């Protein structure tokens, strides 16, 4: 390991892959949302890592990005969960394979 940054980036890439795999293979809409959250947090981890090992760590740029991103993620999760509830009320299921109406 040449630099601690590489370790962080590897962890973030792993986290992103896990999230992507979850989002792609799970049938349950809630689980897909969780996968998406994992991907977002991988991105957040990258922000923090790159900031910490950047030439100017005293400027709180990465921190600010991460905080914004978390706030947006929270809002997105709320919207996503709202959509899932609405779909469940409408169709009685949260199985994504049953939801194939997004055709043109």
């Amino acid at each position, binding site marked *: 390991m040449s630099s601690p940054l590489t370790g962080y980036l590897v962890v973030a890439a792993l986290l992103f892959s896990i999230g992507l795999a979850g989002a792609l293979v799970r049938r349950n809409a809630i689980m897909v949302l969780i996968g998406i959250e994992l991907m977002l947090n991988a991105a957040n981890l990258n922000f923090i890592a790159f900031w910490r090992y950047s030439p100017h760590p005293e400027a709180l740029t990465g921190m600010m990005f991460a905080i914004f991103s978390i706030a947006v993620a929270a809002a997105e999760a709320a919207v996503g969960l709202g959509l899932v509830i609405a779909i469940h009320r409408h169709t009685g299921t949260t199985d*994504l394979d049953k939801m194939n109406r997004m055709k043109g």
Partner: protein
Amino acid sequence: MLATDPLLLYQFGNIPTPPQAWIVRWLWLIPALPILSAGIISLLKQRFRRLSSSLAIGSLSGSLLLSIVALSHVIYTRNLLLQFGFNSGFHDIVNFTWFQFGNSAVDLGWILDPLSAIMAVMVCFVGLLIFIYSTGYMEHDENFTRFFCFLSLFAGAMLGVVIANSILLLFMCWELVGLTSYLLIGFWYQKPSAAAAAKKAFITTRVGDIFFLLGIVWLFAQTGTLLFYNHGSGSMEGLALSGLLAQHAALGLTASGAIGLLIFAGAAGKSGQLPLHVWLPDAMEGPTPVSALIHAATMVAAGVYLIARVYPLMSAGMPLTATGEAAGTTTALIVVTWIGAATAVFAALIAVAQNDIKRILAYSTISQLGYMMAGLGLGGVAVGMFHLITHAFFKALLFLGAGSVIHGCHEEQDIRRMGGLKTQMRATFLTYAVGMLALCGFPLVFSGFWSKDAILEAAHKSAFIKGPYYLLIFGAVLTAFYMTRQVSYVFFGQARGDGHAHESPRVMTAPLAILAFFAVALGAIGTPAWPWFRAFLEGHAASFDMHALFEADFAKLLATSTVIVFLGLGLGWLLYGNKSPKAEEPDALEKAAPALWAALRDRLYVDELYGVTVIAFYYWWARVADWLDRRVWGGIVVAVAWVFKMFAQFNRLLDMHGVDGTFDKACEELSTGGGIVSRVQNGRAQTYLRILAFAVIALAAILIWSVRP
């Protein structure tokens, strides 16, 4: 008649410019005002009745004021010229070029001379009275606004005819007048008879107008100008006339004579001269004020006015004595005289046996127009025009009186169903009697006597044409006879109509009274003792000479015409006076001569004659044209159509197999391709996400690959 041009005299500086000289520049306003108001009225809605009649009356009053100013200017100028020793006719003109083509110009312009001034005043004055009368007569008509629009347009066009100095402008207004006549005869177009009468009037006058137009074209071709007067180069002035005289047309006529006859054909159409008189009696289908204004006082007189306007052309080549008196006549004037005299007797004969109050007056109008034409032919402009002016007043009076009678008798027009109206309609009776006596030429008091007498005198004196004198005398007897018959049927005896007759409102009787006043008073300007009218038109001084009344010639003439009038009146009274025959009973004259009566009642079969000649010919020609259309032209059209149809078939095949095939194939390919691609879009979010993931990985791979050295 040598005419003086006042403009030239003002320029020489020996004559001061008259104070009202501005009127010459602004003369165009006289016709423009009524035409403008017609335009405004045509935009108004039906319910603006008061506004439309006020506009029409107001604009015509404006024209009347202007034409009175114009007349005063003419009188003033004439007196000035007389003072300075110019003893001839004169005129003020304004000309301008409408457009230019090649070397010739189309010129328009207006003229102010005694003739146009006096005619304009007459048209405005009689027109105004009839407008006022119409507000009462047409009160209950729902198309009141339209009526005043047409009347106003008519007045404007007629005034345009009067002041035109260009034969083209005159012709345009002439046609406009014909159009409004058509519109107003057919005003109650719901009645089939009115619609037919309108068409008849339009088409019959068109026959004359074709000849008129030919005359205009010929005149323009020969003289190169459309203007009557243009400081020496107009078509009615010496240079052009001597050019026309030198030209020889066919049948021994000079060009001036031939053109004059062509123009007279137009005038005969408009003025109902033989053989084009058939439309005028039918024109009585229009509202009575229209009959009074257009078909008695003004429009039908336009033909006479036209002949007066082109009189220099008609009389070109007339030999003169040393004192300027006519010492001969021209072919054109002989034709005018004979046709006028024949019309006068012919129409008077028919008028004897008519039972419709307006038809009698219509035939009387034709007969009187014949007198005017004969007067023009025999005695020159002044004689014909004087009868035109007096006739306009008393005939308008008679027509309006007839309208009042019809109005009072609940739209009854048959004189056999009237009777005894002299007590029930006192004002109408009195004024009608004045008009009737003026028309008969009752001696000394009435204007009609003086004007008719002038014509008879001219006919008597004429050394060249003898026959018309006797015709005119006979016509005068008939005139007195049929008018007595009509008046005794309508106003005397017992009432034979159903329902009680009532007098007309004040707005209708007041114009009658004014016209009656003029029917008497106008005689004063044309007596032999003080021939002001003649002197005024011819531009020399009028002297008051009481002795002219006691000359032997005049006394003989006076005696003759008195005998004539009393003969007619007496015969009429003998046969019809106070008899009050039943409507079904045969006429007094019918008992005496049934065959003659039947012929007269059926208008001497002129309509029937046209039916079997002209109209039958047109039917035959229409059938020939129809056959040609069906067989010859139709065949050609069918052949052409067949060729195109074949071509279209060929096109269709090309389309089906060539164009359509290619297109269909392309569409098929597109839809197959679309089917394959659409399988990717299966509506599952995860599939899309998967594709997105692969795409990101592929992009990242490409990026890494390309950055690596």
